[in-house]
């Protein structure tokens, strides 16, 4: 089974003092990492390869700093990596990103395409689905379990209220992977170093099948405003003896309509 997995390098904003300039977050000084959901997708791709044979190709959009995400995919067990990179891509929304990725994917032989269910930075949760539509592939989202069977793939999807759904898709297909589908292996520094000698194929807009009039600043959506929501003061420290605290807490829960 030949698998393509799309990955994204994202900033970690945990505990960070977010600085916004215009419609962008100033990412200087923020630590970067591979998008959490993509780590599960890469791990799943490699596990499928280990089980059923075939190849894994990792694809990302971005400048050379995104090579880190691809090297980690190599260290996990990917066989090839492609980075699509062009200034014209800047400003792409989720659908435009899907168009770019679909352009790169369509030129590579594939039975299965995996995306992380969402990215922790923009959080649209739409790129995978949009890519499936563009590529004309059947797709399933929020996949938490996967089995291949005779040219078909059986995927368990996570629904609301703790329900699961099992769907069967003919191959080729596209799936978006939910976190928790596996335990991604640890990628050692030695592993990354070894992977740094592997070739990353870099493609520009002209080298993939994409209509440049529909991507980057020509995306369907435009960011109008980026801002931090006002902080609402809702934290209260209760003091006193355990009994007093319990009484105060009970009162607050009652007042705020808590369950009683």
């Amino acid at each position: 089974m030949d698998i393509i997995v799309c990955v994204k390098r994202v900033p970690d904003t945990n505990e960070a003092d977010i600085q916004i300039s215009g419609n962008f977050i100033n990412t200087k000084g923020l630590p970067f990492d591979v998008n959490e959901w993509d780590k599960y997708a890469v791990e799943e791709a490699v596990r499928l390869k280990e089980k059923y044979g075939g190849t894994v190709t990792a694809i990302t959009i971005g400048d050379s700093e995104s090579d880190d995400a691809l090297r980690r995919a190599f260290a996990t067990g990917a066989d090839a990596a492609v980075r699509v990179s062009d200034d014209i891509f800047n400003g792409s929304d989720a659908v435009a990103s899907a168009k770019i990725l679909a352009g790169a994917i369509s030129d590579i032989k594939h039975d299965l395409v995996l995306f992380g269910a969402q990215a922790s930075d923009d959080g649209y949760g739409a790129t995978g689905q949009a890519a499936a539509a563009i590529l004309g592939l059947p797709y399933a989202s929020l996949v938490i379990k996967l089995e291949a069977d005779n040219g078909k793939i059986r995927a368990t999807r996570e629904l609301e209220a703790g329900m699961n759904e099992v769907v069967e898709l003919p191959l080729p297909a596209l799936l978006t992977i939910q976190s928790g589908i596996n335990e991604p292996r640890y990628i050692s520094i030695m592993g990354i170093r070894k992977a740094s000698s592997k070739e990353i194929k870099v493609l520009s807009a002209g080298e993939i099948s994409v209509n440049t009039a529909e991507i980057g600043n020509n995306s369907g959506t435009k960011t109008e405003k980026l801002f931090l929501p006002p902080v609402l003061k809702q934290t209260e420290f209760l003091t006193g003896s355990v009994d007093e605290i319990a009484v105060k807490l009970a009162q607050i829960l009652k007042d705020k309509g808590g369950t009683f």
Partner: protein
Amino acid sequence: MIQAKELTEKLEMFACMQCGKCSAGCPESGKSGLNIRRIIRELTVSPLCELKQTDPLWDCTSCSACTLRCPRGLQPHELIIGLRGALIETGEIPVTARDSLEAVFKHGNPWGRAKQKREEWTEGLAIKNLSDSQAEILYYVCCAAAYDPRVQNVARSLAGIFNESGSDFGILGIEESCCGSETRRMGEAGLFEMIVEDNMKLFNSRGVKHIVATSPHCFDALKNKYNAEAITVQHYTQYVAGLLDGGKLSLTKNLDKIVAYHDPCYLGKQNDIYDEPREILKAIPGINYLEFDRRREKSLCCEGGGGRMWLEGTNTGERLAETRVKDAAEMGVDIIATACPFCLLTLEDAVKITGFEEKILIKDISELIVEAL
């Protein structure tokens, strides 16, 4: 499959005579699946080992009692580190260990806290930062002392002691990064190498000649694993004992308490520092100083080392820190004093679990000094 041939040869494990002194002194023997003597035996018989049952490898606290006791001068604890290293390269390690290592790589501390918050503990204190000032001593804070609310008080106490004694010291502030001690002990040799390189670059750019460390773990790594011959590295108990000796610090207030000292493994067993902490405690007026039965070379491990702060272990028996607290209770001790952030945290948990919270206090020596100033 793990190929351990190179490792067993490098560590000369074939010299092992299977006397069992290592496993007999190992704090994890009997209470977990770890049997260091058996591991050595199995690997010397068949170096290409399945190591399928690898979980016990993560029980090791890296206390090095085994190494201290071995009559052949072998280093069994380093064998565990090497085997963990082989597991690390396969990627299959306990999830909590994985997360702490990734956090060290990404954030420079094993808890994944933001770098920008690293000097929060200094709030309200005037402390030099080596990025814009010079100082004779670099006070190396430690991730635990920088971020953990309980251990932050140790950093604040030490800063107070340094100020009181007129010591010329500074910190690296948000530029300080994990020392890598536990990274190395968890077997991530590549990451440790990278940490050493980055830290040495920083130390050199800040003209560091003398480091005083909060934690025995940082102290041990910086002193023994950094190849930094030009830098004097001290644990704070060594430095403070010197201040007391030199008359730079006088402890005047009475501390009318029964105190016993818990030897941290990385300070005592691994670096032979047993006396300075005791000298300091005995210099505090009014203290009734008691010794644990299991002390110095035989000190009971708190199980916080070797990455165990981020590893549950297969651990079925009672936690050793709880045993320690119960021993102290029997002795009628008011305060267990220690000199290590990890010991402080594990013992404090144990005091709560055993229900002695109202009776026994866990204190870092630095905190007791401040009380006596």
